Structures are given as C-alpha cells and as structure tokens.
C-alpha cells in the first residue's frame, strides 16, 4: 500500500507539493516511485529556470523506463536536490523527504487549488 502524506497537495501525474509561504517543494509520490522501481537517474532543471505548470521539467529513469516530471505549479527554480545526482535511490527510499527534487518560488499560489488533496489523490491512485 502506497503512502500518501496528509497536508501535501498532489498532481494527477504523481508529483507532490509542499507549500511554505511562496516556496513550493516538489517531489514524486511513494506510489510513483514504487511503480517506477529502482530509480537510477534523475535529471533536474537548473536553478533560475522558470517552470510553467503542467509542462515537463525533468525526467526520472528507473532500470526499465523513463518518466517525465511535470511541474505542478508555475514558478522559478530556486533549489534543486543535488544529492539525487549521485544517490537517485533516495527517491525510492524517501520520496517525501530526502528524495525531494526542486524548490520553486511561486508568485501565484492559486495553482495549489487545482491540485488534489491527500484524500483525492488516494482515490486517484486507487482507480
């Protein structure tokens, strides 16, 4: 059974968002990492890049497959998780903590309303 964290928001593409003021931390969910299997490569954008909601901002590769990462919100990348370059397996072992991917500076947080809450995301992955 995949873990879904209360208090986070989720995209249908299986990214999670944690908003703290204007800073949004983004990663992929426990469900997504389990579906992908062993993650061996994560490609993330550069700090300073502007992301547009629902467009791809990177890729995550498991042994078997490549999967695009979709920005759940629009914003400027202010931090990327450099540890994932050498330790992509952190996404498997700790998807909501050590396996975070980017931090966005979000101007308009209204986009958060488009995202699913924990309960709705649980229903989404149960489909």
């Amino acid at each position, binding site marked *: 059974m995949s873990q879904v964290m209360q208090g986070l928001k989720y995209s249908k593409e299986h990214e999670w968002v944690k908003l703290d003021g204007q800073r949004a931390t983004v990663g992929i969910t426990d469900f997504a990492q389990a579906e992908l299997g*062993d993650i061996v*490569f994560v*490609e993330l954008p550069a700090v300073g890049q502007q992301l547009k909601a629902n467009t791809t901002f990177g*890729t995550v590769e498991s*042994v*078997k497959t490549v999967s695009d990462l979709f920005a759940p919100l629009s914003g400027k990348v202010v931090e990327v998780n450099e540890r994932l370059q050498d330790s992509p397996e952190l996404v498997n072992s700790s998807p909501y903590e050590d396996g975070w991917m980017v931090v966005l500076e979000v101007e308009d947080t209204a986009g958060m309303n488009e995202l699913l809450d924990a309960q709705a995301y649980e229903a989404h992955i149960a489909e």
Partner: protein
Amino acid sequence: MDTSALKRTPLYPLYTKYGAKVVEFGGWEMPVQFSSILKEHEAVRTRVGLFDVSHMGEFSCVGPGAMSFLQELVTNDVFKLVPGRAMYSPMVNASGTTVDDLLIYCFTPTEFWIVVNAGNIDKDWQWMNSLANHHEVTLRDISSQTALLALQGPLAQSVLQRFTPVDLSTIRFYRFAKGDVLGVPCVISRTGYTGEDGFELYAPCEAAEKLWSTILADKSAEGVVPCGLGARDTLRLEATLPLYGHELTEEIGPLEAGLHAFVKLDKESFVGKDALAKQAKEGLSRRVVGLVVKERGIPRAGYRVFQGDKDIGHVTSGTMSPTLGEPIALAILETPYTSVGLNVEIDIRGKRVSATVVETPFYRRSKETPKKRDQGEDRR
C-alpha cells in the same frame, strides 16, 4: 489495458504471494520484478536467483529426418549435436534476416526439442511446418504442457543439488540430463541467459508450483531470490546476449549481430545461406557493437547514434548497468564507426551524450565457476 487476451504461465497464481509487479510481455502477463531489479540482478551475480520463463515455447521434433530438417532450418551445425547436448542457433529467412533465435536439445539422433521465444511461437510454428513438409519429421507444440524455471547464479548448483539425485557436476555447460527434481521428471539443462552459471529446468506444468515454492523456500544459500524479466534483461545485456526484437530482428541478421560463431557457412545448405554467404563475402555494412556512455543519461532502444552530423545507427538495447554502475548499450552502427575506442554521440531525447565503442561482453563471470570448457562457442 485489455488483459483478457494475455496468456499466463502455470506460476501466475503465485506471483502476488512473492510480490511480483506484473507486466505485458510478448502477449504474456509476466513478472517484471518481485523485489527490485537491482537486488535481483545482484543476487544472480553473487548468489542465486530463480526465474519463471515458462512463457518460452517448446516444440518436439521427432523422426528419421529430424536432424536433416534442423540442419536446413537453422544456421548452426546441428550435425555436431549428440544426445545430451544443447545448441544455440539463429534461424533466418531466405534474405538472411532473423526469424528467431533458439535452443536445440538432442535427446536421440531422431528426437529433439526446439526452444523458441515466447513472442514468436506462432510465427515459428508456421515457419517450421512449412519447411517440415520436405522431411520425415513430426513437429509437436508442447509449450502449453511445459514449464521452464531458470535457477541462475554461482550457487545454483549447490542449491539444486539438494533436490535431485542427478550428479549435477557431471552436467557441463550446454549439456543436459533427464532426471528427477523433487521427484518430478525434468530436463535439467546447464544453460541460461544471465551470463552466470546455472540451470534451466523443463518440467510438466502441473509440477511448476511445487518446484518454484520449494526451491524458493531453501535457505542454504541465504535464500534463493525470485527474479523477474527486468533483471533477466539487465543480466543478459551485461553479458551481451542478444534479445530477439532488439539485436536480432526481421531486419537484423545474425552476422550483423556478431553471431558469426553460430553461422556455419561451410554447411552444405540451410535456409538463408546464400544471403549470409554474400554478406560475409562482401563485408557487412553495419554491425552491433557495445557502447559505454561517458556522461549522464541512459540510452534506450531506438535512440539514434551520431558522429558529428552523421546519423550512423541506433541503439538496440540500453540500460544502467547494475554491475558496472555505468549506462551501457548495444547499438547497430555503420561499419566504419564500429572500432573499439571510437567516440560517438547518442541522442537521448534531444540531448547528445558522448559514448565510446567498447569490447563486449560488458561483463564476463570469473573463471572459478564451472563454465564453457570445451564448448567455447556455445552460448545463450
């Protein structure tokens, strides 16, 4: 996905119990992994893993004309087979491209098995029957009665020996014996598709669950790890064993795939001989080579390969090599670009990454384990 038309092996009912993630593969619902591809891969390289490969097809081939039929059917020299020996061979069409690659087991000079890829069972069955008309031979598709388990890894012999009275040390690489495993009559074959020592067990379907459960319950080797097709693919790719549909296809022939040792152009005749002999004489325009990626990025099947602006071929298989810790690929490239040490570029979703042509196999097991000995050219 509509899974109603997909086929299942006799072990399908046990997959969930062992934690399998099931995917569609060649018309079958198969486990891609049980625990983790990386863990399963490592288990086979260092200890022992068990695979369900019952989706593979088996045909029996019996009759006074069986050997001459097989000799015409495949590119390797079947006349070299004696009872108790197995042989790997490509099977090509008249234009010299690949219909399938397969194993032939010789039980007696008039009784053989042909083991084919799951996705090609129907195609091969028709192909072989069209040729069998000219020979005194009877073909029978025994796939649906036959389960196939592969126990692979350096500890495979010591684990399997606990369950069979057959002295496994007497079965050398690419040899087999009929014998009981857990009281079940099996064909015990020292073959595999992982680059490690190991055995493949052909057994009646109704005994598959017993073999699977009992072998996995054995604790003598720190436990046998159930393995899926994901690890099977990374293991075979490191060992540079071709996969039908990738390195061998209806477009790619065995010489282009580097399988010269399994194409016997000195045989009197076989289907596709003229085309392959012409290729060999005139020289190959392209060849499958190994690539190691020097930057960050994982090549995947179908990605284009360049040198400068020139498109020189494509990746046939690629992955992050668990043993080497580097991205590796097999690619079919125009011959002038196939020298070891040459630098090329792979287009990974719009980004060029540099790669180097390397010697293959990417991985070769250490000599300590029982292996090729006098059978230097056989493999699979």
